[in-house]
């Protein structure tokens, strides 16, 4: 269904981005910082942090990002497919001070690759870099892993607003590129079908099958 909605025809895009990661790694904070530029120390009147929309303008194209937050607790892991179906992109968040949360990201990547293949664009966010002294996931390990699975790695801090804007921008650009490639592919398929249709020659039956003489030796 996502395909139907992505291309508005006039260069507008609607993308669904799903936030995945273990509980308490900062998924909600990351998305709040990105969309509202707020961190939960501020006093706000209304706040809906589970689903957020962000409108962007890249290269003259209007893009609407629908960012879906998900429950990260282990007991809710089985619900993943309900959330990530029809997604164009996924941000996998882990806490750099928590090795387990990085392992969880690896599990998510495996599952996403298995279920959606290369349809989905992936970004991995090593969050809470403001707590660099307590880091438990080595930078190299994380970056190498991201490269090995075709994802981009970003070092982020929702608290200090580091790396978040760049991460979503880069992800959006990749999703746009993917959507454009799909459009071209679809267009070429259509042209091929049409040209095939044009090449079909209706041949008169009488002309195609001259009476065989060799069969019975007559």
């Amino acid at each position, binding site marked *: 269904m996502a395909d139907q909605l992505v291309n508005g025809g006039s260069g507008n895009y609607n993308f669904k981005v799903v936030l995945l990661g273990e509980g308490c790694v900062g998924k909600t904070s990351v998305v709040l910082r990105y969309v509202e530029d707020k961190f*939960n120390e501020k*006093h*706000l009147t209304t*706040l809906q*942090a*589970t689903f957020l929309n962000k409108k962007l303008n890249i290269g003259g194209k209007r893009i609407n990002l629908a960012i879906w937050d998900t429950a990260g607790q282990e007991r*809710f892991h089985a619900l993943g497919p309900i*959330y990530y179906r029809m997604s164009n992109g996924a941000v996998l968040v882990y806490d750099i001070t928590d090795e387990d949360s990085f392992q969880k990201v690896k599990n998510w990547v495996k599952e996403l690759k298995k279920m959606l293949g290369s349809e989905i664009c992936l970004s991995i966010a090593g969050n809470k870099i403001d707590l660099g002294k307590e880091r438990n996931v080595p930078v190299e390990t994380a970056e190498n892993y991201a490269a090995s699975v075709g994802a981009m790695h970003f070092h982020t801090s929702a608290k200090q607003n580091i790396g978040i804007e760049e991460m979503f921008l880069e992800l959006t650009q990749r999703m746009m590129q993917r959507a454009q490639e799909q459009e071209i592919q679809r267009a070429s398929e259509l042209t091929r079908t049409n040209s095939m*249709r044009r090449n079909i020659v209706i041949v008169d039956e009488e002309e195609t099958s001259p009476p065989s003489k060799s069969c019975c030796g007559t």
Partner: protein
Amino acid sequence: MLEATLRKEIVRNLHSAIDSEMLNDDNAYCYYIKSLALVSDVLKTDVNNPTLSHKDKWNLIEFAKQSVERLVFIVKKGQNSSDNIVTRDETPSAPPENLVNEQSFITLCQNSCEDEMIMSRYQKRLGMATSAMEKQNLELELARQLVEKAAITRNRLMQATAWAMQTAHKKFKIQEKLQNGKLVESDFKKQQLYALSLQFNQSNSWLNQLASDLALYPNHEKIVRELLDNILTDNSQPVKATINHMQEKVNTILNKSLSNPDADPKEHALIFEEVSNTIKDDINIIQDVVKALFEPLNSEKNVSITSEVVHHVYFAPLKQNIITLIRYSLKDIEKQLVNRIKEGFEEGINFRLTECCKEAITKLHYLTTLHNPYDMLDCTVHIIKLLAATKFEQKHCTSVGADDLLPRLCQVVVSSSLPSICAEATFMETFMPAARALGEDGYAVTMLQSAIAHLANTTV
């Protein structure tokens, strides 16, 4: 005064005639004749014993006029088909573009006749005029009236041209589809309904007035809704008659399936899939035709209103049966949810409910009473917003993310004691408009679905 029973009888005959015409049934002719006989009887009685008001008489005569027109059309159609005369060279379901030419021709003829009448009337008055001043005034008045008439004629011609262009564009689109091999059965249905509705709308002055109001104020929601109400609630309208027919068809399938509640849930699921595909096709046809009939309905806002109203009308008589069918197909999940609800109550889950949770439960109950997927989606979004509202604790704001929201929603679902909520969520997910799937509505339904899935698959 015209008796209510007589009026009902006449209107019933007219409706039956229109329905028969829609179904290409031969009875249409009989119904029109019957209603004409009734009208003539009433008028005859009125001559001897005058009881009818002027308005009643006018309505009856207008009605008779329309019936005669339809009878002429039916007779002509019958003659054409019996003589095997092909009158149009395009696809049989294409909009009647010759109607446009006919219309502009009639307009021109009418105008020339009217001009002649005006001229002769003025010449008579000129002959009777005594002073030069009076004659001059009469000439000026004649000139003004002729200019006015010319302006009106030009306007009518422009309208006819615009209509012809619109029809040509539609025809071009059909040709394009034909060339690409993409023409499907629903396209033919759309074209048939479109052609019928065009004919109907032409003779409906009230609808024409609304359509011109809409053209003047395309963003006026009240006008849009009034127009849609008019089309979608009047049973004599081809669009509404088609909806009725579609609903009957779906209901027949549903009733057949519901008569066997003990069948395999998978069987029910298959029937539901079939029914939902039929419903989606039906709704698409109706929406496309309505949008094609009234151009201003194609704006982003009006498309959404049109879709909402069409869903509202379509699902009103069907929702209950659809929900029952979904419940049959989700029997196992519902059973697990019932167990979970029982366990929740044994634990005394209700004692820990906050005010917003209690409000969410009330809303969840209210959701089951709604039949329009749009209203249901709005209600679900409201529930999610209630549960994900910001908390203020000791002057510190805590934003609620999905980590907190999902457990809270699970608690609400358990406390609501609504096993049918599985079916309601599936109903919303299935009939959710595509434009809303990625938005807040899609997210809210996904959240509800995931809460149900979590509760149905886990034990305490």
